[in-house]
């Protein structure tokens, strides 16, 4: 079974019903972020920046940016990528996600619109078929000189590294909370109703060369190696 269908099976497996997973399932962690610290210098010194947050909707982040007089756009791309209507088959008959449809429905902004994009750990959890098209679209919606922050797991993090939502709690400090998908009944590709029971699964581990290739259209790239098996990457268009 392809990774796409495995991921969807994981998302939709389980009993029916509509209930939420208990809150205690999600654990809060605090971490310092050098990449965020560097970005902070930009939003502390400039007015009315336009920021795109691609993580889970965060009231903290909205308060943080609007409190500084910046404009914030929120778009949870990982959740959007679980839309069953995106499932299609490639020429070999493998189940993949339709990147054209995805980009027709998501990341629809004028060119050179944003000063900063917060990707968080999106590339590590996004389906393979969407990663390059999404990075290409992000390049086009970033202003020249605009910055993008992304986090990548190192191999030492292990395949079961949980996906987190990121809340900015200070200039260089983040609060991370494991994402537990709500139990939401959905109609799957076969018409059967399934229920999400788990978080997102790490799809791959990028090495430095993969990351450089992924952002090869950008003007510069900077790596920050953190102690928690995360590489922070700050790229400039």
């Amino acid at each position, binding site marked *: 079974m392809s990774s796409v269908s495995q991921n969807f099976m994981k998302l939709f497996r389980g009993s029916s019903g509509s209930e*939420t997973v208990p809150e205690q399932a*999600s654990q809060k962690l605090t971490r310092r972020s050098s990449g965020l610290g560097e970005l902070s210098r930009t939003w502390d010194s400039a007015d009315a920046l336009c920021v795109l947050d691609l993580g889970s909707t*965060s009231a903290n982040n*909205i308060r943080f940016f609007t409190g500084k007089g910046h*404009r914030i756009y929120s*778009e*949870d791309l990982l959740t959007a990528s679980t839309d069953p209507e995106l499932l299609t088959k490639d020429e070999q008959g493998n189940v993949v996600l339709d990147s054209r449809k995805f980009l027709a429905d998501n990341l629809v902004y004028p060119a050179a619109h944003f000063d900063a994009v917060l990707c968080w750990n999106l590339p590590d959890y996004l389906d393979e078929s969407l990663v390059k098209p999404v990075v290409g679209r992000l390049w086009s919606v970033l202003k020249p000189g605009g910055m993008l922050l992304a986090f990548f797991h190192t191999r030492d993090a292990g395949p079961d590294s949980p996906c987190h939502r990121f809340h900015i709690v200070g200039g260089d400090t983040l609060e991370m909370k494991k994402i537990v998908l709500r139990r939401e009944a959905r109609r799957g590709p076969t018409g059967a109703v399934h229920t999400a029971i788990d978080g997102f699964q790490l799809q791959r581990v990028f090495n430095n060369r993969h990351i450089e290739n992924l952002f090869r259209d950008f003007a510069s790239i900077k790596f920050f190696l953190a102690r928690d098996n995360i590489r922070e990457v700050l790229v400039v268009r």
Partner: protein
Amino acid sequence: MSAPASGLAQIGKSVVVKGELSGSEDLYVDGQVEGSIALKANSLTVGPNGQVKASVDAKGVVVQGKLEGNIQASDRVELRKSAIVTGDISTQRISIEEGAYLKGKVDIHRADVK
């Protein structure tokens, strides 16, 4: 899950409304509304079963269900954990519960200083 207060204007979950909705009392929508909603001095609550495809202009907006359209709230917007909102939000204050989904721009405007 907060239930609508008695005496509140309600659109029940089996009701479908298409067109312009306006009024001078609080409104609870648990059904489907398509068009526009204007409650300048009052609040709109979209219940857990509510599916609203409309631009909303109200004093306060609470979303528990699905809302597609821009929200203009003179006071506050609350997105509960089951909320799914697609559209831009312009308000003075906003609260978002963990798990709520928002796709759009958030614009916080300051209260007019008199």
